[in-house]
């Protein structure tokens, strides 16, 4: 028995070492490209030519970032921020209201309503591009914030409604009823009792939507072509096309700049984000 236990613990120790090595290797694979990019953003053109790609910058050179911000990146940032904030706010408000109605109010066709919103998960974005493009060009919505906000909200709703529905399924009905009977009405009960209790799920939906909106490409590429209205991802692409072909430093600086806001959100709120992803998938 004693011998067997020793054998097992030895086996386990070897296993632990193997797992640690593998996990470090994976870490390298998943994180190094970004680290390499950030280091690269701090190198001069001469350094790129004279030293190997994996070399660290000799000293921190900020000129690449200067180039990036001389190229209207402030404008791209403002565009992306405004769009992301509006998308998040509108998606949270609309999805929570729809989910609340489906889950707590009494009307016929609830199941159908839920399925109607689930449909959106199945629809490839490409299917709506052409009709939306034609409509937006007719009503002069191309090259406006709304041409991105509307589809980003709409395509975010199916998943967000699902997350809110899962949350409301465990929500105490008595609380809402008591508040409603006390004469504060359903709408008021919703805003002063239900919404504050949804804090965590709201943060989850908001982070997921914010990052989705910040990174979204196909709607932006199709509906925006004026340089003034470009979002950060479009700006990055056009910047690389103009300046980054020979000199890599500015490209890496531009990539780093566009990634930093998502990294900050993720650093502080990754717990909420991951909760939403696992919940949504298992339910959906």
């Amino acid at each position, binding site marked *: 028995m004693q011998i067997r236990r020793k054998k097992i613990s030895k086996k386990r120790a070897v296993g632990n070492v193997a797992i640690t090595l593998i996990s470090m290797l994976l870490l390298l694979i998943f994180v190094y490209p970004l680290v390499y990019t950030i280091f690269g953003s701090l190198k001069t053109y001469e350094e790129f030519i004279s030293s190997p790609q994996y070399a660290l910058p000799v000293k921190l050179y900020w000129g690449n970032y200067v180039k990036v911000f001389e190229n209207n990146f402030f404008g791209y940032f403002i565009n992306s921020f405004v769009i992301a904030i509006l998308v998040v706010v509108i998606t949270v408000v609309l999805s929570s*209201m*729809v989910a609340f109605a489906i889950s707590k109010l009494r*009307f016929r066709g609830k199941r159908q309503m839920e399925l109607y919103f689930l449909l959106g998960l199945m*629809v490839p974005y490409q299917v709506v591009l052409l009709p*939306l493009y034609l409509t937006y060009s007719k009503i002069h919505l191309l090259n406006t914030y709304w041409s991105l906000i509307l*589809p980003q909200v709409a395509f975010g709703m199916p998943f967000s409604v699902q997350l809110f529905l899962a949350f409301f399924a465990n929500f105490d009905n008595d609380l809402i009823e008591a508040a409603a009977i006390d004469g504060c009405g359903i*709408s008021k009960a919703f805003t002063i009792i239900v919404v504050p209790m949804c804090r965590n799920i709201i943060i989850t939906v908001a982070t997921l939507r914010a990052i989705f909106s910040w990174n979204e490409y196909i709607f932006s590429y199709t509906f925006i072509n004026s340089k003034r209205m470009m979002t950060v991802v479009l700006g990055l692409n056009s910047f690389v096309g103009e300046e980054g072909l020979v000199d890599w430093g500015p490209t890496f600086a531009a990539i780093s700049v566009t990634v930093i806001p998502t*990294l900050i959100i993720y650093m502080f709120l990754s717990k909420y984000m991951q909760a939403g992803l696992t919940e949504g998938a298992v339910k959906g």
Partner: protein
Amino acid sequence: MNSLLGRKKIIAGFLLPGVIVYSISVVIPILWSIWYSFFDWNGYGAKEFCGLSNYLTMLSDKEMWQSVGHTINLSVWQVVLQVGGGLVLAVILSRMVVFKRVFQTLYYLPVIISSVALCQMFKKIFAVMPPGLFNQLLSAIRPEWIHLEWLTNIKTSLGMVIFTTGYKNVAVYMLIFYSALLTVSHSLTEAARIDGAGSWQIFRRITLPHLKPAMIANVILVMNGSLRSYDIPVLLTAGGPVNTSQTQALYMYKQAFTSMKYGYGSALAMFIVFESLLFAILIQLYSVRSKGE
């Protein structure tokens, strides 16, 4: 109470804003796409009704079937890389002794980076002129490998798209599997271990069956995402060289927006929808049948 929760005005107030935004941006455009797919139309001239002729054109459109082939190839590989890889990562994560949370968070980084940023990074890492990071590392093994082409090579372009897509998304499925792994009954695996079952047997007989619902959900999610994949192929290789990494969504976009064949483009879009639905139905049938066993 009943009347309060069932008051029509209140219900409409809660539902309508969401339903309207969702309908005008998702549901109604789909119906329009279906409608357009029956017309020969370049967007400016008159719409000419042409019945099913757009769909018939598809049958003999070689470039389209080539792009469908690439998409299916890509999708099957995504199931391997994202669902298979996600499972492996989740198991590794569950075996880790320290810093689990840190590793989990860092593995997830590629998911939150935009496709545009990721593809720009990979374009430089796999560059040939001047040699990028990857080729410089390879040249340490054999000096002539510094000239290997990856993104501009007809043999590897689709592979690179497949790799990048898998790389970007695998951690999502790692998380889903990992949270499912946490719910495996500990007393059950302990009992099996006491009965002399090895780790592999426990994994096969207890853990894997437990993960089956998550597995099916993940396959659906991955297929659903892969059949429409557009961002990475267009950003990494632009579908090239000579269409070797062109997916069906890319081809559809090209037909609709570059060649201005609005009717044909819509028909191609409907084909993507049809494929997704077909796949969803198949997997439903499969999971119902295997439940019955």
